[in-house]
């Protein structure tokens, strides 16, 4: 099991502070990549290198060195984390380069990556003892420490609630509600909206469940697949007893239609909201009807 906290924040130093771990940006010179690299740097993320084939030797914003290949960036910086902004067509190549070069945490932002390419990268990641978050993820954030993704900074505040979400904007919305209600976040992880995810709901849960400072978890699911059902069964099996609240988007969506995300589709009963809500209920996880209800339900769970 990859220790995501070890990768993201390392060990506390003598003053009891975690260390911002170095991060490489693949596709740093693109429009999207450069915009978000600046925003991540503003947030305090320790961006140490960029990778753009054909632009090796240049500098991003006059200070971040750009390399031709991830292996060169890793050799120069010893980073174990990379965030990828390349277009979906080039993802397979970029992600392979990262994993072959010793990257242990790959945050895959692009949407529209073919499933077959994702599956190939998952196989390679297993081989290399690495983890991919995404594709089609907003990324991961530990509020006030490091933001490796495209999420806006404003919804988040530090705290002890972990949020796992398939959707990006719902993650922002619900984190914002939590912050307003006084529930800061220890970490939020975007699972991604694709049919096949590098880090599944259950994997993300296992990554964060033993954090001693964790007070509760919010799971933001949506129609499609059975990640929520499997997570609920796992929670029952291990008798996990910290408060968890769920939300499932797409209850009223028509069947056999892709609702925006490649993975958000109900086939027969497979992937239906009813099935997910039934399993959450069985696992004693209350399910909010509206995003605005999540914080209310969590407050209720915390006091009982």
């Amino acid at each position, binding site marked *: 099991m990859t220790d995501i906290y070890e990768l993201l924040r390392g060990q506390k130093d003598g003053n009891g502070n975690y260390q911002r771990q170095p991060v490489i940006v693949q596709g740093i010179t693109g429009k999207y990549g450069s915009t978000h690299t600046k925003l991540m740097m503003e947030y305090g993320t320790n961006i140490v290198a960029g990778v753009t084939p054909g632009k090796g030797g240049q500098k991003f914003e006059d200070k971040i060195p750009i390399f031709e290949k991830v292996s060169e960036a890793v050799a120069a910086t010893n980073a174990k984390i990379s965030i990828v902004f390349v277009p979906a067509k080039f993802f397979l190549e970029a992600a392979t380069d990262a994993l072959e070069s010793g990257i242990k945490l790959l945050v895959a932002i692009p949407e529209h990556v073919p499933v*077959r390419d994702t599956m190939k990268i998952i196989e390679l990641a297993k081989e290399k003892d690495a983890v991919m978050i995404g594709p089609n993820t907003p990324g991961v954030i530990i509020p006030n420490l490091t933001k490796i993704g495209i999420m806006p900074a404003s919804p988040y505040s530090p705290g002890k609630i972990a949020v796992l979400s398939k*959707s990006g904007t719902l993650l922002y919305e619900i984190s914002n509600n939590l912050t307003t209600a006084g529930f800061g976040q220890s970490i939020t992880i975007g699972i991604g909206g694709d049919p096949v995810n590098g880090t599944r709901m259950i994997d993300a849960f296992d990554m964060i469940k033993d954090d001693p400072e964790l007070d509760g978890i919010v799971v933001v699911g949506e129609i499609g697949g*059975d990640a929520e059902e499997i997570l609920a069964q796992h929670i029952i099996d291990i008798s996990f007893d910290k408060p968890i609240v769920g939300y499932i988007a797409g209850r009223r969506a028509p069947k056999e239609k892709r609702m925006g995300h490649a993975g958000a589709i109900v*086939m*027969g009963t497979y992937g239906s909201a009813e099935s997910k809500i039934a399993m959450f209920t069985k696992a004693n996880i209350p399910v909010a009807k509206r995003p605005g209800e999540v914080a209310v339900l969590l407050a209720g769970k915390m006091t009982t």
Partner: protein
Amino acid sequence: MRLLEYQAKELFKEFGIRVPESIASKDIEQGRIDAKKLGYPFVIKAQVPVGGRGKAGGIQKCNSDDEFEIKYPQILGMSIKGEKTRAILLEKMAEIEKELYLSLFLNRSKRCYTIIASSEGGVEIESVKNQTIKEVGLGDVGDETAKEVANEIGLQGSQEEEFVTMLKQLSKLTVEKEAELAEINPLAILKDGSIMALDGKVMTDDNSNFRHEELSKYQEKSELEERAEKSGFSLVELDGNIAVIGNGAGLVMSTFDMLADNGGKPATFLDVGGGATTESVYEALTLISKMNRVKGILVNLYGGIVKTTTVASAFIKAYDENLIDLPVFARLMGAESDKAKEMLKNTKTKIFDSVEDAINTAVMEVNR
């Protein structure tokens, strides 16, 4: 992309999978020519991208010209579960001894391809208890695995051989075309002992379309869907009267759910993508303006990085240019929302602090 039956069967033929003799058409003139070629009796099958067409009357036997003249237009004009018939397939009837089930699909939670086979076919797979399930990595099926599956569903001798060949052909199709699902249901054992695919369902990965120019001819998109795709939006059209626009699939789904919960009838699911700019919102309004059934527009945007004033100017532009004259009920979360409200004061756009308020007002005013 979800292929229609006749398209799936074209792929089946290409990969050597045996299917009944059939011809597809989109109008009765062509249908009459096909009927002559094929000869009675045959079945007329509605080509719709949704299951359950048999029960809905979308598959009917046809024995004569007289029957043909009545049934062809009737089935072509049919809507099944909200989906209009896209085409008609005329198909020779097979002499069936037994119906089986076979599919290869992308198992999302296991992150591998999986074979499902059963000696009970012709019904929805969810209701089949007797399933043989095998995980097969990236979808390649070899002789040994195929034989195991054949034996587990009780096939021997020449039927086993034919099944092994068919499963391997289906596997090849799945891998080469990057299908998320390739299903043969029913797979029939005919009276003469041979086997044949009587129905076909193939879904391919839209995200791999750039590698499959050859499949583009199967793309059946409405003009609006095509335009939406060009702008990087996702659009699902429905038959209600309140258009739902938002940024991010999850947020739009949740808005859609809340609207339906409160008695509203969604006319669209329109996701303009994670960001939201003046241009993208204006383009979204342009698409909506082309739908006559829409009586109001519900907008839910989580700005974050984007300023809400940017979005507000898109509404103003749309009204100024007489693109829309519809009431808009908007919740714009993000920077400068007070300023956005002020900008939209004398327009038909109302800004709300919560999406719940926007929805309640939208339902009330549109239903009035």
